[in-house]
């Protein structure tokens, strides 16, 4: 981790310890497992790729006023397939659980600092 060379040693160690601790929690262990299952499931990944491509296409069509009822039905059908895919749903749910715990962690940090760490960590450009 070359970036840690610029951090004070105590902060570097505290960051590494926080990372290891987070990764060892049930929510993040479950998220890692769900991520691995999704990576190994070509059909699920293909479904997500199709959904992302269709959503991008419909956003373009909507900008040009070209979207049709058939387009919306295609989107609904694809979303239904995604919502029926166990690998994908498990991944999404586990990610949300990990995010929820991370928000708790951010609150712990903020209570001690007196400022919201996530706000300070926000990237300055969109």
């Amino acid at each position, binding site marked *: 981790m070359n970036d840690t060379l610029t*951090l*004070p040693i105590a902060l570097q160690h505290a960051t590494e310890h926080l990372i290891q*601790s987070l990764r060892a929690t049930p929510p993040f262990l479950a998220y890692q497992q769900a991520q691995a299952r999704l990576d190994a499931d070509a059909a699920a990944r293909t479904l997500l790729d199709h959904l992302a491509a269709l959503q991008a296409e419909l956003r373009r069509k909507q900008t040009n006023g070209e979207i049709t009822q058939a387009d919306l039905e295609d989107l609904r059908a694809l979303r239904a397939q995604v919502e029926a895919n166990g690998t994908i749903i498990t991944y999404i749910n586990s990610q949300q659980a990990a*995010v929820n715990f991370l928000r*708790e*962690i*951010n609150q712990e940090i903020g209570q001690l600092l007196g400022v919201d760490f996530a*706000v*300070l*960590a926000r990237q300055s450009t969109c």
Partner: protein
Amino acid sequence: MHSTDVNQMPLDAARQAARDFAAALAETPQFQAFEGVYEHLRQDAVAQQALEDYRSKADALGALLMLNAVSDAERAELERRKHHYLTLDSVQAYAAAELELTGLCQQTAGLISAAIGVNYAASCGVSCCG
């Protein structure tokens, strides 16, 4: 050991690691400098008045600003008040200290995000657009 204890211990350990992280961040020169200039700015009556002058003008113009229906004179006055505030020494010192601290926080959050596979700032409800 009950299954709930097995699950609870790593969660508690992570919360303690978060508190240790916060303590380490609070000890950095960047954070301590930020705390110092923030307090100085808070007690700077001239700066606080300048900020109030700017905000009251912006509030008075309200919806006209959003509709881009403000006269050139009013817009110029608003910009003048904003410029006055932003060029005060205590405000510039605060901005500089905040920039240093945010750089440090972005670096550490980036390391955490890369390691856990979740974007820290985005997950905690903060977008780049606020």
